[in-house]
């Protein structure tokens, strides 16, 4: 059996889901037998490759870069997995939404608390512009699988990946697999 081309991306989230992924401990060796990691925050690859079999997406869509990347991911991946509560629901990343648009948050972060030359960084290429409304991944592109959890426990991640490697749909049933938070 040829190895699956595996990617994981980190959008608007805290990287906790990736930490939980690393909690898979020695099973990671088994995983390495079954997949090639072609893109990941823990691998030094600059552009999202083509012909990816499965992509885990951590984090919500919160800025322009995310928005562009997520479309590339969809185009280049057979299977897109919303990985963790931020990707599935928006979660903590989206808690800024009720406050209004991006400016409110930017002002709070860069201006309100600054005494010396308060300004929002704005030069091109310095920071990606925030989008006004943080949305979960499936609000932008079709998503194939969802792994809730903040972060999803390692056991849950393993159960999903195990099924995917075997070419099956994971059974997302019960507390073990579905509890949010």
């Amino acid at each position, binding site marked *: 059996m040829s190895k699956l081309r595996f990617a994981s991306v980190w959008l608007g989230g805290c990287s906790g889901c990736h930490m939980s992924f690393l909690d898979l401990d020695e099973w990671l060796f088994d995983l390495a037998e079954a997949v090639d990691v072609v893109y990941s925050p823990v691998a030094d690859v600059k552009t999202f490759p083509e012909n990816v079999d499965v992509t885990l997406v951590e984090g919500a869509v919160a800025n322009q870069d995310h928005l562009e990347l997520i479309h590339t991911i969809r185009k280049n991946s057979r299977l897109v997995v919303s990985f963790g509560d931020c990707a599935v629901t928006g979660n903590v990343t989206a808690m800024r939404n009720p406050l209004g648009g991006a400016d409110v948050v930017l002002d709070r972060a860069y201006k309100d608390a600054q005494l010396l030359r308060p300004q929002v960084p704005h030069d091109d290429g310095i920071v990606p512009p925030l989008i006004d409304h943080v949305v979960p991944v499936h609000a932008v592109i079709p998503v194939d699988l969802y792994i809730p959890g903040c972060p999803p426990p390692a056991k849950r991640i393993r159960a999903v990946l195990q099924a995917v490697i075997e070419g099956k749909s994971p059974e997302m049933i019960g507390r073990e697999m579905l509890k*949010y*938070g």
Partner: protein
Amino acid sequence: MPRTLTINGQEISARSDQTILEAAREANIHIPTLCHLDGLTDVGACRMCLVEVSGSSKLLPACTTRVQEGMEVRTETERLRAYRRQIIELLFAERNHVCAVCVANGNCELQDAAIAVGMDHVRYDYLFPKLGLDLSHERFGMDHNRCILCTRCVRACDQLEGAHTIDVMGRGARSLIIHDMNVPWGEATTCTSCGKCVMACPTGALFKQGSTVAEMVRDADKLAFLRAARDRKVWNV
């Protein structure tokens, strides 16, 4: 007069004054609920307990429908499951339910319901309304972001405590739980600070001050106990 009926094909008997929900629970048949709480009157609002009854074209709420002789009830059809999941999704989309930062995480009827209906994601747009947090009461707090408007607190305050400090203002999606005339809870002069509303809350909307993520302890059973003790007058004083 006992009544014989079937629920999911299982034959059970019940008293004529029992609801389908009560009869089902006695027979260990689970019917999901959100606005129901033992000890409070039922309002049939959450629609989670809707069941199919032979001969009725409409779905009936198990919590307010009395049993009848020969009734054939089905509680777990594909259609009911699909509806229940939609209802739970609507609730998650309606307000800002963030399990990760909620006092009720791991101890929440809404979270449990999401698991039970198999909600792996929400199909509807999250609305992200801007809602308040009331920490003016010295012992309790109210976070409207987590409220599902089940009115269990309203009924607990009215029917068990007798204070009716809590009610609902506005209507539709703009409905909001209020204290007295929409004053900060700490200024609500009719409140006795008894905490029954906090016990009644199915989510983390009402909580004890000082509790943090996942620290909420549920003691809704106390309310059923109070009601039973009162109705049966077990304390002879």
